[in-house]
């Protein structure tokens, strides 16, 4: 093989008919994997959550966090699991990280509940497939939704690899105590999809997401694009997991596993 690597890559790049110039370009630069590209946006903001699973211990801790979200957002409590609407909930390690488990993980991990919510993916498939732009990504990275535009096709539910979206199979208002609803937040109608919005309405007022506030420091909110932000500091000093990295959506929700003392 006398042909050197640069030359080879150039030829490969040039002969890549139909590969698109940018693909050839990244090939020459040696960046073959899209997932290695920076996911940081031009806007300079990518909002994210870090969940330190070790710091949430009791059932009450979990309930306080999920209730905080569901009560202020008027999320109905529908007993039929087929029709339920949930923005943030818990599930097992195996269900949360189905492709990152082995049969020998510590029992405490196996038994510990994990908080699940929309990942506000940097490359969200739910946005990619929505035919009406009802689901869209804001420049700050929040993936949110206009329920008034949603036609209820549920394509986004098929596309989300994390089961983060709920559909209003029935009238949600029948499952809300209308005397107790939060008057500052709308209730939804039948036939539309909904999910965690990363508390856009609170962020606009300079507040942190409700679940973060209720977590007593177990959840941290911040800007991934800012190297000095709290979230980046945790991510650079702790071992964290994201859900299903193989599908390339680049989640903005990170799970601190084991804590700093184990990471070092």
């Amino acid at each position, binding site marked *: 093989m006398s042909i050197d690597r640069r030359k080879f890559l150039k030829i490969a790049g040039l002969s890549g008919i139909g590969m698109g110039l940018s693909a050839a370009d990244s090939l020459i630069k040696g960046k073959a994997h899209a997932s290695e590209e920076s996911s940081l946006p031009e806007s300079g903001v990518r909002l994210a959550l870090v969940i330190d699973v070790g710091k949430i211990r009791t059932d009450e801790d979990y309930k306080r966090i999920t209730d905080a979200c569901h009560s202020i957002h008027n999320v109905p409590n529908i007993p039929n699991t087929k029709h339920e609407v949930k923005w943030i909930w818990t599930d097992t390690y195996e269900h949360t990280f189905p492709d990152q488990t082995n049969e020998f993980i510590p029992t405490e991990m196996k038994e510990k509940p994990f908080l699940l919510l929309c990942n506000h993916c940097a490359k969200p*498939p739910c946005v990619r497939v*929505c*035919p*009406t732009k009802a689901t869209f990504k804001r420049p700050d990275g929040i993936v949110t939704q206009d329920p008034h*535009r949603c036609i*209820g096709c549920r394509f986004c*539910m098929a596309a989300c690899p994390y089961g983060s979206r709920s559909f209003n199979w029935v009238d949600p208002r029948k499952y809300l105590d209308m005397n107790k609803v939060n008057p500052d937040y709308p209730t939804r109608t039948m036939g539309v999809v909904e999910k965690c919005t990363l508390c856009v309405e609170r962020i606009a007022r300079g507040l942190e997401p409700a679940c973060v506030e209720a977590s007593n420091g177990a959840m941290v909110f911040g800007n991934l694009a800012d190297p000095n932000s709290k979230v980046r500091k945790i991510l650079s000093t702790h071992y964290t997991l994201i859900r299903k990295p193989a599908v390339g*959506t680049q989640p903005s929700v990170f799970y601190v596993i084991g804590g700093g003392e184990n990471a070092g």
Partner: protein
Amino acid sequence: MLDRALKGSKGYWTLVIILLGFIGAGSLAYLHQFNNGLGVTGMSRDVSWGFYISQFTFLVGVAASAVMLVIPYYLHNFKKFGRIVILGEFLAIASVTMCMTFIFVDMGQPMRIMNVLLYPTPNSILFWDAMVLNGYLMLNLVIGWATLHAEKKGVPPPAWSKPLIYLSIPWAVSIHTVTAFLYAGLPGRHFWLTAILAVRFLASAFAGGPALLILLALILRKHTKFDAGKEPIQAVAKIVAYAMCANVFLIGLEFFTAFYSNIPSHMHAFEFLYAHGNLVPLMWTSTILALLSLILIVPPKMRGNETVLLWACIAIFISLWIDKGFGLVIGGFVPTPFDTVTEYWPTLTETTITLGVWALGFLVLTVLYKVAISVREELGTAGPPK
């Protein structure tokens, strides 16, 4: 020409009234769904598409299959398809009508369906599907009508219809390819995330659609004066045979990739469908019918016997309907993103609506076929070809 649909025999009107009855029942069931939400169906947070979307997917194939008659007739000048090609085009019209109705009844907010056009979103495959389906409906309406009109007048089809006919060929392929892309581009749904999905869709469509057409042609021969002729039916049967072989082969490829690679996420859906879910009996019925149909339709001697052919076509139609009109969509949603299993079974309301939509399609088909056959009866070209 449409006035010919208003004069018919007693049998014709009985059929129309039965179909109207089913449509009525479906409409009532839909009203119930409209008022109470899609919660009246068997769908759930985990299996968010069900019977409606799978019927839609299956029928896109039936619609696309018209091209299997258009190509030989117009491109290869295979004259023998002269009298049957219009049956294919009208079948396409009826199928696309059903497709669109199935999409409509599946919407959570049907009154907002125009949002797809008001906020055109080129990155959504659903947008393109709406475009190609509407286009295909228009193409077939115009072509079918123009050729029948010309036939009635005893003149060759108008010159402008030629380019439209040629356009309809890639267009037919596109409707089923785009429909496959609805599924094949979704991360995390391993059952659908396969590059051969579009090819599989086309193979099964080119078997299932023409099989239905043969059944229709045999029914027409029995109950009307129209006879498509033995030779064209045999030619279509040959197409069905080849396409069915390709289809079975392609499904075999999926099994190989999933099980030889031994990657759990690729095997899960197959295990659910064929080993431990509630669809197991259905899926095995589909498999057995598929293999049986190959024995019946591949050997020329068997195929040449029209009774054997009839049963082969019934077997193929049922087999593919189960595979695509049921297993494909459900298999994709089970297992869930959490690696759990949520079973799905359509409710009575859902089934009634589905039957209503099928009845609507058959009504459209009946009316269109009635017009085509009446025209030919008047021309004296309805009987068996010489």
